[in-house]
């Protein structure tokens, strides 16, 4: 029986959803607010796709592949600013995700660690935390594992089970070896890894959806340096477009409409069933479509915005918002940035982004030193070992710190950041809070005249305590790096309450079994609307300290299969 679906958003969640439904014979229409940047998309196999991306920093600075910050501004403020009545203190990109066919995965660097077993039972295992809306996931790691495995094999993930520490495998057991071996580790990351080993940590190859060998007709990565934030010029990275969406379109069962901004989901009078999706097309004209299933995959902020924009008589506070949880529990990753400084050029950029991972600070930690920080426990995160900055990014950063003129130029010549520093990032867990939320800005609009999403945020005491606890450990690790002449960390949550500039986002439409405390059920279906599902990271009840894309993919595939099987 042919079924129809509208998928809103073509990033990882939308891409894998369209792929799975197409395979099962569904007719799928994908609405994507960005444009296609891969010539040949939908016409030729993924191995033959062209690309408009390149190793060009100016395009990144000009938001190529991202929503334009003037056309589609986001606004932001901190919780304390909100309490003081400030409507917004930031406007522009703020924490915008990508907007292109393929979504943010077009310019991610494809790090693919799985979440851990313990992440799905956090409330049960560790208890409540004041000021945080802790919750267990309505699903377990074991339920997700087959889907992790399937997406990893479809997209092509490098790694090595034999080099993973036992405590990592115990928490994220795998049914088989990775698709391909790790790519070589850059020189600077090797130095950092030695520092990690000296303080007793266990660096291991970072799972990544980057080809270390030819895969699916696409070449191996050649470690060109410009990975995170750049589209891959040689087609060596798996992503939503090449791995899922393009095959789905080639199957004849999926069509993708680019520059299509969904702005309202219409329901029947009772509000129990969605009847249409309204969107603006590339000419700015309003259009509408109907389908059996409406599957939202807009990324956490845009997904929440669409639900809020879809308020109607039956859903006066936004679609599926009986619980008043739509837009709340917005979570990022609270990074601790670190760097070891060297006297000489350590080629920190020359690598396939980050190829090593340290999980020794994932936790949880519950000792007296944690209690003294005013929290019942601390959950940490993985540490990304090795990163560098390209030239124009370096120039901007100095520009933000220093004056123009010779001082700036001398910094560019001596290059403390680019040539002489190797970086690490601790991807800190962010606890869900009711007041960390997306709502509709009362004044600022996008170019269609629609209210912009507004982000209100502050880190929880858990994040601040985490910075105090983990920061010195990371700094010690960096100081142990062979050849390091200095090391420093930037504990983000201790410095600013502003939402961190990261593409790691979750929450806003959490899934759970109780309709009074969650937005959707275990299958992402809105508790109050039969045929609308949230497919993306919006559904995550908590946000463990691991790069989220592989879990976004696995969870969307799980929900898709349950839809196909008629379970939901």
């Amino acid at each position, binding site marked *: 029986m042919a079924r129809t679906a509208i998928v809103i958003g073509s990033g990882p969640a939308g891409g894998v959803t369209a792929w799975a439904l197409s395979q099962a014979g569904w007719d799928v229409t994908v609405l994507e607010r960005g444009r296609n940047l891969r010539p040949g998309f939908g016409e030729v196999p993924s191995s033959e796709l062209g690309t408009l991306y390149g190793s060009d920093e100016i395009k990144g600075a000009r938001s190529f592949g991202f929503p334009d910050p003037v056309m589609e501004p986001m606004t932001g403020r901190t919780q304390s600013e909100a309490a003081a009545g400030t409507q917004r203190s930031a406007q*522009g990109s703020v924490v915008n995700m990508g907007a292109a066919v393929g979504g943010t995965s077009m310019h991610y660097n494809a790090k693919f660690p799985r979440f851990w077993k313990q992440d799905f039972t956090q409330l049960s295992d560790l208890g409540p935390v004041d000021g945080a809306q802790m919750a267990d996931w309505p699903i377990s790691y074991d339920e997700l594992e087959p889907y992790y495995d399937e997406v990893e094999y479809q997209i092509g993930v490098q790694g090595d089970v034999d080099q993973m520490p036992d405590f990592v495998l115990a928490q994220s057991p795998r049914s088989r070896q990775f698709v391909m071996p790790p790519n070589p580790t850059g020189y600077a990351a090797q130095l950092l890894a030695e520092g990690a080993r000296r303080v007793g940590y266990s660096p291991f190859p970072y799972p990544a959806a980057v080809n270390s060998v030819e895969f699916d007709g696409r070449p191996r990565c050649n470690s060109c340096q410009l990975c995170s934030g750049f589209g891959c010029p040689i087609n060596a990275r798996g992503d939503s477009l090449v791995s899922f969406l393009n095959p789905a379109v080639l199957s004849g069962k999926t069509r993708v409409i680019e520059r299509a901004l969904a702005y309202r989901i219409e329901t029947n009078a009772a509000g129990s069933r969605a009847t249409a999706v309204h969107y603006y097309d590339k000419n700015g004209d309003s259009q509408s479509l109907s389908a059996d299933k409406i599957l939202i995959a807009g990324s956490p902020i845009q997904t929440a915005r669409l639900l809020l924009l879809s308020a109607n008589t039956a859903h006066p506070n936004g679609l599926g918002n009986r619980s008043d949880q739509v837009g709340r529990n917005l979570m990022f990753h609270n990074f601790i940035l670190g760097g070891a400084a060297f*006297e000489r050029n350590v080629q920190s950029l020359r690598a396939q982004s980050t190829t090593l991972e340290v999980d020794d600070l994932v936790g949880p930690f519950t000792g007296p030193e944690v209690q003294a920080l005013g929290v019942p426990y601390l959950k940490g995160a993985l540490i990304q070992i090795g990163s560098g900055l390209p030239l124009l990014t370096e120039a901007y950063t100095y520009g933000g710190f220093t004056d123009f003129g010779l001082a700036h130029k001398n910094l560019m010549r001596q290059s403390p950041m*680019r040539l002489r520093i190797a970086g690490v990032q601790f991807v800190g867990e962010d606890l869900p809070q009711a007041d960390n939320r997306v709502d509709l800005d009362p004044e600022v609009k996008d170019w269609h005249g629609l209210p912009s999403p507004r982000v209100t945020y502050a880190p929880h005491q858990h994040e601040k305590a985490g910075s105090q606890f983990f920061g010195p450990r990371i700094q010690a690790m960096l100081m142990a790096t062979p050849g390091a002449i200095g090391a420093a960390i930037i504990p983000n949550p201790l410095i600013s309450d502003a939402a961190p500039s990261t593409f790691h986002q979750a929450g806003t439409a959490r899934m759970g079994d109780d309709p009074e405390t969650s937005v959707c059920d275990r299958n992402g279906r809105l508790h109050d609307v039969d045929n609308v599902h949230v497919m993306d990271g919006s559904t995550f009840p908590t946000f463990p300290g691991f790069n989220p894309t592989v879990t976004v993919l696995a969870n969307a595939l799980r929900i898709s299969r349950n839809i196909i099987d008629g379970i939901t």
Partner: protein
Amino acid sequence: MDEEQYSRREVLKQAAALSGGLATVTVFGGCADGNSGKVAITRPPRNNANGELFLNETELKALNAVCDRFVPGAPEDPSPGAVDAGCADAINLLLSAFAFDPPMIFAGGPFSDRAGAEHNDFADFIPLDSYEAFAWRLKIEGSLGLPEREFNGPVKGWQQTYRDGLAALDAAAAGYGAPDFASLPLETRDLLLRSGDDPLIADLVDVAFLHTLDAMYGAPEYGGNRNLVGWGFTEYEGDVQPRGFTDEQVTQPDNPGLFDLAPAPAGSGVTTGNSRLRSSALLPVPDLDDALEMRRAFNDLVAMTSGELSLGMMQNSQGSLKKLRAEISKLTPGESK
């Protein structure tokens, strides 16, 4: 070095040879149309619609003198600066982006011809769709009183910001008895640019500094970084695709340190580390030739080497120094936010 391997010298040599035929716009003041004051371009990039650029000769002279203060060259500094890189001309191209078809906003992809590709895709600018054209006209031209462009109120475009700011600088020069800004001593030019007294000048500095950085250190297809001077003194390898790097270039240092020279520990069995690392090795702490700046760098910058976060920082700046500094302040220890 293996002949097949990527060679920085080779790339620079290729780039130098290339620069003669590059589609970089060369602006000759002597070719200006004396009646309109518009600057003609003698070797236009492909598909130049009308052969005119936004800034006139007088404005371009002033802008050149501004860019010179942002990234000084000789005689203050031995390395080429913004004037050598052609930054003012590149900014003029940005302000004139819609005089070209396609507009010169996004260079093409995936490759330049600096690292093994036969064709320079970067030189083929990407046609804008209606969304992008709207967005970039709004930034460059401003809202111009058009209701459809004022969905969040009036927007002053970069063209007006430059025109007003450069005129204000020339007017201010008169107060010093100089015919124009470019004729002022370096120190006076710095004073005018830094003082912030005149909002028109402050607005100019706000956008022109980051535009100058783009033109100094970005890809040369946008009209700056002539002869790759921005990638020379900075020891930047530039775009290296499709050649990329060999495994050996990735895993081994070009310039080994002391700790790289020791033999691998017997039986270390390390598979993710450098087999030549010796855990007991030490490096002497070197003398730095600019200790104050490096100290500041250690304090403030050492931890910011994260491409994932810095892209958001750059995009949030939207070409504005004020916005960039607001972003940076979020990562600056010791400041209360």
